[in-house]
């Protein structure tokens, strides 16, 4: 039996001779923590589920409350929230590429990796700092943003901040594009495993905050209806699913890269993940640039609302995949029940299946090599 404590609060135990993975569900602790909390403060709790989806869980909470109380937010609020969520995707994907994927299978540990690749690490770290700066400008705090609240946004970006963000985004695109060749070399095995996938979907955009749920080639469904009906056997969620569903709506550079690399759709190999997240981050950066260049932000008053006994839900795309929040609220505006379906939870079966299908002969590898291979595979699922 081996145990990895490295991965995002998920304890993974497995036996080498017969792989059996147990993925603990952390959400029930957070669902419990939400009971008794004022609905308008729910995001203070959910922001801390996972730092790499902190902004997204915050927005999911706020949108669920807005749904419950019948609050209509402005177009500008939606736009700024989309900027936030795409910026978080950029940041989280970059962290995954530069601090997990590239160092994996390369060196003994992360520090050894950065010593060996000092120049590349410095450039990558500077780019990560730029992505962090984007989140700080938009969210006014990182992690655990404070700028989006129930009903709207507290502080709009200034003209200087807009210019700064556009420059940062262009630098991030340049860094990621330069990393594609290194990611191509990391392609491990060819596993034709992802046979069913789902994500948010809309006819004319790549949605992260709103939309219907599309499962592979089926007709798109209302998100709430989908999650109420589907209690188990979830299709695969995450960047690969999003790219499969939205391949015709990617940004110019993302499309060019897909053609250049020769990516075929639908993507079924989990080991395509590193390339997919680099391309998605570039797509998000270009969409943010377009958004910032074409928008003039103006001060707005947030809608006034009163708490009421209600049920609210929201469905958003985080860096890791689709997240669903639903809250029951009492007449004092406090949460009496919460249900959170996380990205990783939906991918549990695919993760287990992938580990059992690893195409290596355990007898020909050392324990350390086996551990490294399994850990690398888990990186493909954002664990």
């Amino acid at each position, binding site marked *: 039996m081996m145990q990895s*404590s490295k991965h995002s609060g998920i304890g993974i135990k497995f036996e080498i001779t017969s792989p059996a993975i147990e993925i603990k569900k952390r959400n029930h602790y957070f669902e419990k923590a939400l009971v008794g909390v004022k609905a308008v403060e729910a995001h203070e709790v959910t922001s*801390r589920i*996972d*730092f790499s989806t902190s902004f997204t869980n915050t927005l999911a909470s706020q949108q669920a409350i807005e749904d419950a109380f019948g609050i209509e937010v402005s177009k500008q609020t939606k736009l700024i929230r989309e900027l936030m969520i795409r910026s978080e995707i950029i940041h989280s994907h970059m962290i995954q590429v530069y601090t997990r994927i590239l160092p994996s299978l390369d060196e003994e540990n992360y520090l050894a990796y950065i010593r060996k690749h000092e120049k590349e690490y410095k450039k990558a770290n500077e780019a990560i*700092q730029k992505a962090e700066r984007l989140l700080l400008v938009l969210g*006014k705090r990182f*992690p655990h943003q*404070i700028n989006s609240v129930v009903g709207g946004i507290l502080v709009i970006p200034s003209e200087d901040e807009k210019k700064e963000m556009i420059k940062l985004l262009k630098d991030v695109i340049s860094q990621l594009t330069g990393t594609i060749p290194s990611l191509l070399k990391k392609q491990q095995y060819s596993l034709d495993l992802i046979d069913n996938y789902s994500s948010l979907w809309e006819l004319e955009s790549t949605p992260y905050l709103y939309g219907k749920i599309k499962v592979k080639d089926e007709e798109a469904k209302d998100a709430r209806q989908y999650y109420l009906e589907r209690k188990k056997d979830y299709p695969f969620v995450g960047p690969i699913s999003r790219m499969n569903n939205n391949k015709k709506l990617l940004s110019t550079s993302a499309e060019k890269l897909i053609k250049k690399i020769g990516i075929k759709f639908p993507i079924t190999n989990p080991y395509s993940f590193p390339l997919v997240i680099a391309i998605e981050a570039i797509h998000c950066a270009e969409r943010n640039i377009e958004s910032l260049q074409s928008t003039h932000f103006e001060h707005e008053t947030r809608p006034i609302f009163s708490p009421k006994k209600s049920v609210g839900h929201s469905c958003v795309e985080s860096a890791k995949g689709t997240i669903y929040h639903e809250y029951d609220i009492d007449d004092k505006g406090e949460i009496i029940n919460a249900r959170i379906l996380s990205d990783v939870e939906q991918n549990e079966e695919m993760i287990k299946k992938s580990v059992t299908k690893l195409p290596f002969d355990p007898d020909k590898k050392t324990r350390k090599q086996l*551990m490294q291979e399994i850990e690398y595979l888990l990186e493909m699922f954002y664990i």
Partner: protein
Amino acid sequence: MKKSIKLLRLEGCGGCFQKLLNHPRLSEISEHFDIHHSESSNGHDYLFIEGGIINGEQEKMFKEMSGKSKSIVLFGSCAKNPAQILKMKEARPASTMKEEEYSLVGCSPSYEEITGLFSKIILEKKDEAINTPVCDDCQKKEINCLMLKGIECQGAKTSGNCEILCPKISKECTGCRTSLGER
């Protein structure tokens, strides 16, 4: 000889350790410390803890690893007071099982604070509790007091040396740097 550090993530969002791994001066830090976050059965000089204990399995993991480490360091506010930060009544800090040698508050701590912690460890300086509230930081930066505007703000009872990002945009302090004076 380099000191060795083992990172143990309990219940928390993972942001504090990620901040450490993203630190712009990580190369320099690594000249003094070996940092491990994967499975390691060896003993370590320092066990850095992120997050709190909420179940038996985490308790067992902490017991096993702290038994092999000379000192523990509570890294981030969640490690210091997980019940307060995560709003989980059952969450308790690792320091209820073994007293910490150092603690660093912040959600997450800034890069400068992280550098400060490592510098303290290198210089073998004793850890001291922060004894000024967030209110002092607001006063220094001439931010108008939110409490005087009738807003419920926890600044007066929260550990200072804060960047006051929340009051700067007229948002109340929610106490993410944990209570004042706790060591």
